[in-house]
């Protein structure tokens, strides 16, 4: 059985700051990490591998050369091999061009697969679009917001527990399919030193646009259907009053007065 996980390297959003003068992003000092939801998808794939040790797991990412570090993390966690789609022609891609490139790579490089896992959304873009778009391009069913899965019928079908607005539901479909994952372990896993060393010997293949059967004008910025025309800082809400709450009674009093003055009570 082959499981492909599409992952993305993203900046650590919690560290991103806005330059108050120019209103632009301060890029220095922000670490790059494997997108947390992508890491959940990797954990899901590894869960399958633990139950079915003969499963082949592949991590694939489209990104700049530095994204190698995120794939290394996947390999250290236990993924068998990795593929980095790296080419300046891929740069500037919107979700459509990204989905198309990944889908093309899955067909051209991997050929066949049983399951594609993706993270629910990337924390820099937050679109959650690439997963469903890949499934549409590849013509396979997709299930979103997966939190658990169970292989059935001798790995021909899969049951996915997914989050819905009112709770959870269990959905069944035939393989191959795509699942976007929205939950992972409470504590991020830590590899052993052996796994870190072994990862360095695992295959991490670099793939360029030339390796894919796709025209230049279908990828990257040229292949994108959406374009950013403006970037600006968000409207900052004015800060209100700050009150010293070291005296619980004074604080409670302040709260009730405030609520009363605003007619909440």
């Amino acid at each position: 059985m082959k499981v492909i996980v599409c992952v993305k390297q993203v900046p650590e959003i919690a560290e991103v700051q806005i330059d108050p003068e120019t209103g632009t992003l301060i890029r220095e000092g922000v670490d790059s990490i494997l997108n947390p939801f992508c890491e959940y998808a990797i954990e899901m794939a590894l869960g399958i591998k633990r139950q079915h040790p003969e499963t082949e797991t592949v991590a694939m990412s489209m990104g700049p050369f530095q994204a190698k570090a995120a794939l290394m993390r996947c390999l250290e966690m236990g993924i068998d091999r990795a593929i980095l789609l790296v080419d300046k022609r891929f740069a500037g891609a919107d979700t459509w061009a990204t989905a198309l490139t990944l889908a093309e790579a899955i067909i051209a490089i991997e050929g066949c697969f049983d399951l594609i896992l993706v993270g629910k959304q990337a924390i820099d873009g937050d679109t959650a679009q690439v997963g469903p778009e890949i499934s549409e391009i590849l013509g396979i069913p997709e299930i979103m917001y997966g939190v658990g899965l169970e292989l059935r019928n001798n790995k021909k079908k899969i049951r996915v527990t997914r989050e819905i607005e009112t709770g959870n539901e269990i959905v069944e479909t035939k393989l191959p399919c795509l699942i976007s994952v929205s939950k992972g372990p409470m504590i991020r896993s830590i590899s052993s030193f052996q796994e870190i060393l072994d990862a360095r010997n695992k295959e991490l293949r670099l793939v360029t646009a030339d390796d894919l059967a796709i025209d230049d004008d279908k990828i990257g910025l040229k292949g994108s259907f959406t374009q950013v025309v403006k970037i600006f800082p968000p409207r900052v809400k004015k800060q209100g009053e700050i009150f010293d709450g070291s005296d619980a009674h004074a604080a409670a009093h302040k709260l009730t007065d405030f609520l009363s003055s605003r007619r909440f009570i």
Partner: protein
Amino acid sequence: MLSVDRDKCTGCNICEKVCPFGAIVVIDGKAQVQDNCTLCGACVTSCPVGALSIERRQIPQDELDAFSGVFIWGECEQRAETLIPKKVVRELLSQGRLLADKLHQDLTVITLGDHRLTGLDSLFAHGANRVIRCQHKLLGRYEPDSFTLVMSAIITKYMPAVFLFGATPNGRELAPRIAARLRLGLTADCTGLDVNEDGQLVQTRPAFGGNIMASIVSPFTRPQMATVRPNVFPLAQPNKPKKRRIDDFKISLSKALTRTKVVATHRLEADGEASIEDADVIVSAGRGCQNKENLSLIQELAMALGGAVAGSRAIVELDWLPHTKQVGQSGLTVAPQLYIAIGISGAIQHLVGISSARTIIAINNDPDAPIFKVADLGIVGNALEILPVFIRELKNRASAPK
């Protein structure tokens, strides 16, 4: 393509400072465009000597003009034995109406459902010119394969210029499926929509967790698709409807079309319990509440104020509350009149979920917590000590003789 006029360029470095992506750098005194340029245009407007220009691919105007109309997905939900449009549809109607008026085009709501579909009259009362209704026994429950098929067929037949969806869990699945099938540009989670001088839909949304805002257009594809974040736009107010036109869209569907099947459902909300998206008062817990047992204080306060309980991503990850109560960028956006944040630090991804709250109160031990920057009243102190006293005071006030 971003081009640099090297004769005009003075190497002043302003473009390098202004670029949000580090995609233009001055090398040997001249600006050079890097591979990761997104054509956002920040540098073009800032260049003092006009040395930068962007050439964008053009599509003949008459091709684009063939598409007309603002369409909205009237996503429905089950209420007792009926299927009625969700609250977010009324938000889309108010914004859709503005866009339709600017474009001098009609506003249409698409509804899919079975015989239980009802409440369509209110769509006209809230600004729709037309409703396209597709009723089929296999559409009684939202399901991506059949809904993608029907919507794609409707788009192909009616050729709208704009198609809006609520960024609900279903909307965020359906829209990209349709966009990929029809090769369309789609912008997710918009908090702002407008029409520019070229008649293009300008879609504004938060990026980088909400640290910056991006305005996006889809210049070459029609319809221009967008999912709209719920609880941001105002609800359309009822009006005397101009006319009432319902078009029935007929399509044959078979069960074989749907590749996924629901095997079991597990409700987490108590029957009849409202979603926090509709709550007027919300008391929300964060990691600062220290342990699950302390949530009882949160619940008590919520009850005393007649409000709902919610939580940050941190406590949902700890399983203190179900995901249906999660507020934030990867959870729900809420729009209460009053939001009380207890022990929540206020990371940007959380703040994005409460940007529509009218009044925000925060209690946190850390004076530097970012939540204080957006709170109307911030209390720096130990919530676990303050809450019991606060709750007691509220109860006393409530029972005090008037």
